[in-house]
C-alpha cells in the first residue's frame, strides 16, 4: 500500500526526467502520468481516514498537510476534461517542469520516511 505510493512517485520522477532529457513526447508522458494521479491521492486520503478511525492522531497530523496540499493541487489544476494534473502544453515550461520534479522528490522523501515510520513506529 505504502509501497504503491512510493513506486508511483518514483515513476513520476523518472518520467519528468525523461521529459527533460527529451526522451519522450510530452503528450505521451502526460497520458501515462495523468491516470495515476487520482489513485495516488485517493489512497493517501484512504490512509488518512484509516488513521482517523484508529485514532492515530500524531500520524494523522503528519499526513494532514499533504492531504490539504493534494486537495489544493487538484483544485487548481488546468482546465482538463479527463482526470489528472499534467497538461502537455505547459509541462515543458521550465518553471512547471522544475516544480513537478521538485514535488516528486519531496513526496518521495515523505513517503519513504512514512513507510518506515509505519513499519516500525
Amino acid at each position, binding site marked *: 500500500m505504502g509501497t504503491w505510493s512510493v513506486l508511483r512517485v518514483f515513476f513520476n520522477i523518472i518520467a519528468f526526467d525523461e521529459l527533460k*532529457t527529451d526522451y519522450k513526447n*510530452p*503528450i505521451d508522458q502526460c497520458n501515462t502520468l495523468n491516470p495515476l494521479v487520482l489513485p495516488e491521492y485517493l489512497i493517501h486520503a484512504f490512509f488518512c481516514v484509516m488513521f482517523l478511525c484508529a485514532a492515530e492522531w500524531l500520524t494523522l497530523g503528519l499526513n494532514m498537510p499533504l492531504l490539504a496540499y493534494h486537495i489544493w493541487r487538484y483544485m487548481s489544476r488546468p*482546465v482538463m*476534461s479527463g482526470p489528472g494534473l499534467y497538461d*502537455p502544453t505547459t509541462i515543458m*515550461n*521550465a518553471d512547471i517542469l*522544475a*516544480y513537478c520534479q521538485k514535488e516528486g522528490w519531496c513526496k518521495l522523501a515523505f513517503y519513504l520516511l512514512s513507510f518506515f515510520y509505519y513499519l516500525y513506529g
Partner: protein
Amino acid sequence: MCLCSCSPSRMEFPSGYGSHLPSYSVPSGHYSQVPSKAAASHLDNQYRASYYPTYYSAPAQNVMTPSVGTNVLNTQESQQLYNKTPAHTVGSAEGPIQGAISSASYLHTSAQQSYSAFGNHYSTSVSSSVASQGFPLNSDHYTMPMVSSAMYPNVSYPPVAAGRVYGQAFTSQTLPAVGQFKETNTFSSQSTSVPHSLQQHVPVGYNTTLTTISSAQSIQDSLCRNLTGSVAKVNNQINRGMQYGGYVNNQASSAPAPLSSSSDDEEEDEEDEEAGCFVPYFHPLKPFFPLRLNTRSMTSSPVPAPSVPQTSKASKPFGYGYPTLQPGYQNAAPPAPVQPNNPGHHPGFQHYPQQYPGVNQLSSSLGGLSLQHSQQPESLRPVNLTQDRNILPVSSVPAPVPNLNSDLRKLNCSPDSFRCTLTNIPQTQALLNKAKLPLGLLLHPFRDLTQLPVITSSTIVRCRSCRTYINPFVSFIDQRRWKCNLCYRVNDVPEEFMYNPLTRSYGEPHKRPEVQNSTVEFIASSDYMLRPPQPAVYLFVLDVSHNAVEAGYLTIVCQSLLENLDKLPGDSRTRIGFITFDSTVQFYNLQEGLSQPQMLIVSDIDDIFLPTPDSLLVNLHESKELIKDLLNALPNMFTNTRETHSALGPALQAAFKLMSPTGGRISVFQTQLPSLGAGLLHSREDPNQRSSTKVVQHLGPATDFYKKLALDCSGQQTAVDLFLLSSQYSDLASLACMSKYSAGCIYYYPSFHRSHNPAQAEKLQKDLKRYLTRKIGFEAVMRIRCTKGLSIHTFHGNFFVRSTDLLSLANVNPDAGFAVQMSIEESLTDTSLVCFQTALLYTSSKGERRIRVHTLCLPVVSSLADVYAGADVQAVVCLLANMAVDRSVSSSLSDARDALVNAVVDSLAAYMSTASNLQQSMLIAPNSLKLFPLYILALLKQKAFRTGTSTRLDDRVYAMCQMKSQPLVHLMKMIHPNLYRIDKLIDESTIHVNDRVVPQPPLQKLSAEKLTREGAFLMDCGSIFYIWIGKNCSNNFIKDVLGYPNYASVPQKMTQLPEVDALSSERTRSFISWLRDSRPLSPVLQVIKDENPAKTDFFQHLIEDRTEAAFSYYEFLLNIQQQICK
C-alpha cells in the same frame, strides 16, 4: 543606399539562380528588410562623421598602463599573422565581391562546371554577400548608413580623421580582431598615435555646417572603398585562426573520414539524444518574474563596483577629464543638467533631434568596444526621465548593435529576424538577476527575405555532438577541422566542403556561403524526412448559420479565394476542400468528372463521419472548374437559412479526420459562439465587468476540447487558422486554443458586417489576400540551440513544445513571431562570445524539404554597467509583454500589471544603485533604457492589460494572442504607435526609394498636446492607420490631400486618399505607401474628424495623456520614482 544597390543585384539573381529563388519573391517589396536603418540613415550621417573621433580620442587620455604589455604582444601577433596571409587575399578581396554583384550568371555556370569535377551534383547560390559588400560602390546619399554600420565599430575612424596616419593604422586595425578575446585593452596602444589629429578635427565637425561634414564623409567613403574589403578579409582570416603561411594544397591525399552520413540519418526531431548535454541541470523554482526576487534588499546588497568611473556621472556626465573636447561635445550630446535633452527648447528643432538616433545607434554599438572600461559609452549616458520630456527618437528606434568586432558584426544575423533582449550577455545568472532585466530572444524566423543564400549540397555540415549547423562564428582550427561554437567540439571538415563554389577554389572552407552568411537555407536530403514531403493541402471550414449569412463574410471569402486560387502556394499536387456547417455539417464532393459540386449533409453531429473520404479533398488543378462553381454558388446557397446554431466542434472533428492522412492547413471562419455538439461554449462575459478595475475573469479556456483537437492536429501536421468575425462575445479565449497549439494564426474582426462596417470588410479582404498568397511551410519543426551554459526557459508563440528546445509547428508562416526566455545555467566566464542558432526545418509548398538557419552571436560581459549598455529596450518590452500575458492567464491581470510596473521599478532601481552618487530625487535611466517606462506605460494602456476602460473580453484576449504571436516590429507598433504630423510634409526632409520621394516627418509624442487644430496627423498602429484632421486644418491640405473643399465636407467614413495632382497629395501618398511597404499586412486607413465616433479609438492610443483610469506619463514616472525610493 542599400535600396539602390539591392535592387539591381536582386534583379540579376533569377538569371543565375532562377530555380532556387522563386518562392522568395516578396510582395511587400525589397524595402522591408531595412526600413529602420534607411530611415535613420541620413540623420546619422552628419553625426557620425564628426562624432566618432570624439569617442575614440577619449581613451587616449586614459591609456591604461597595465594593458600595454598585452597590447604589444597583440600587435606583434597580429602583424605576424598578417604577414603570413598571402598577398592575394588582401589584394583580391574585392574580386569575389564584384563577381557576386555583377555576374550572377557567370557564377552559376562556373559552379556547375567545377562541380562536375567532383562528381557531386551540387550547386550553391549565394546572394547575400552582395548585401554586405555592395555598398562602397554607391552614391553618397544612401551610402552612409551601410558604411557606418559596417565600419564604425572598426578602429579605422581615427586614422580617417588624421588622414595621413593611414598607413600606420592599417596594421593596427587588425588588432580588435585578434584581441577580441581580450577586448578591454587593445585600443589604447593605437589611440595614442592619433589624439592630436582628432582634437583638431573635432570642433570643426561639430560646430559648423554640412560642408565639413561632407568632406569627412568623402574621406570615409574613400576609405571604405579602399579598405573595407581587404581589411575585413584580413581580419577574417586572422580571426579564424587560419594560417596560410606554410600551407600547401595537399588535401586530397589526406582526406579525413567525411562526416558520416549515418549520423545525419536521424531526423531533425529525433536527433538529439546527444544534445541532452544542454539540460542536465535541475534548476530551482523561480517566481515568474525572476526579476522580482527581494527587490528591496537589492539596494542595500553590495553591488560590485562598476568598472565605469562613476564620479563624473551625476553632474558632468561628459567632458569630465576631456577638457579639450568640451565645446564640440556639448553640442552633440547635451548633458542633462546644463542643456536638457529637449530639442523643443532649441529654435533649430529640425536640426538637433536628428542627431539623436545617431547617438543611440552608435552608442549602443560603441557600448563596449574596448572603450567600455575607460569611458562611459553613450548608451549608459544617464537620462533624467522626469526632466527630459522629448526622449523619443526622430525616426523609428533602431535595434542596438552588438558590441562585436566589425567583421563578426557584419556577419551577424539581422535584428529583424533574430534579436536578443540583452546584446551584452551577462556572465552569470547572478549578474543577470542583479540587472533585473529579462534575458530572451525574439525570433521572426520565417520572415520574407529578399536575399537568402540557398544551398544544395549532399552533406549538410553539422557538429557531430550538438548537431549545430556550421555558421559564420565557428572557428577553423586548420583546413581540415572546425570547432563548434556552441559545444566546442572539434569536427572534421568533409571533403565536399573544401570546395568553394563561390570562388571556384579548393581549400577555402571558410569562404563557403554557409560560413559567410548567418542566415542560410539548405535544401535537405531525404535524411531529414520521416515521410515523403506532403503536398500543400488547404481546407476551408465555413460557418453558414444565419448569423454568418447576415454578416455577409461569405461573399468576401469566396471572392478572395476566386481571385487568388492560382496564387495559392503549391505545386501540381495541391489539394483543396470545403466544409460548411450550421447545425449540421455539409461536405462538398468536388471529384473531377462531376458536372457540378455535390453537397453531402451529415446531421449526426455527435458521431461525425466522412461521407466520401476520397473525393472531399481534391486536386486544385484537376477540379478547378468545380471549385470555381462552388465558390460562385456558395454565397447565395444559404441566403434563406433559418439555422442559428453553430456546430463548430463536430465540423472541426470532421476537418481533422479529413486532413489527418496528409496534414496541411485548416482555415476556420466562425461568426458566433459554438452552440451544438462537442466543444459547445457558453457565454462567460459579464458586460458590466468590462471596465472593472479589479478582476478580469475568463482569460483562460472554458474547455480543453479545442486544445486537445489542436494537439491532435499538430500530431498530424495540420494547423488550424481561426478567423473570428463576430459581433457578440464568442469566447475567443477558448476558441483561440485551436490555433495556439497547432501553430496556426488568429484573426479577429469585432463587429464585422460587410456593409455596416466597411473598414472591417476591407481589412478582411486585405488580410485574406495576404493570407492566401503568402509563403507557407508545412510539417515544420524549429529547434533553438545555444552556447553551452545557456538554456531555454520558456517559449512564447503559437506552437506545441515537443521537447526542451524543439517546437513543433504544423505550419509556419512568414508573419509568425516567437519569443524565448533564456536562463544562464552555468557561468560563461570562459567564453567571450555566445551564439544562438535557430534551425527551422520545413516542407515548402513545392514539396521541398528545407532548413532555414539563423545564427546570432553576442558578446559576454562581466560588469553590470555593460549589461545595461547593451539592453535592447524594444526586445525587453516585447518579452515582458509575452510574460505578462502568461501571467495574466495563469494568475490574474492585476498580477501581470504589477509585474510589468515592477520590471521597470526594479531595473531602474538596480541601475541607480550602481551609480551610487546619483541624486535620489531624480529618476535616472541609462540611455539604452530611457524608453522603458514609456513603453511599459503603453503596455499598461494596451487593450490586453488595461483596466478601468471598457474593454470587451474578446478584444482583450485577441490583443493577448497577438502579443504572443506577432514579431517584434509589429508588436512594437501595437504597443506604441508612431505618430507623424502630415500637413507639412513638403517641408520635411526626404529619402528616395525607387524613384519616389518619401518625406520623413519626425516622430511625435503620443500626447494630445502635440495635436494642434491646425494640423493633420497620421498614427501608424501597425494594422491600422488613423489620419486625424484638426478643425482648423488648412483648406489647402484638405483639398489637395483628401480631395474635399473644406473640413465640414469630409465624410465620416473615409478609408482612401484620392489621387490628386498636387505635391502635398503625392508626398502624403508616397509616405503612406512607404509605411505600408514595410509590413506584410497592408493596414487599413481611417480618416478621423473630431466629431467622429471613431475618435475614441484614436485618442486611446495617446498613451502619454491621463485618462480617468490611468496615469499620464509624468505621473507614471513619479509613481515609479516613489516606488524606487520606498
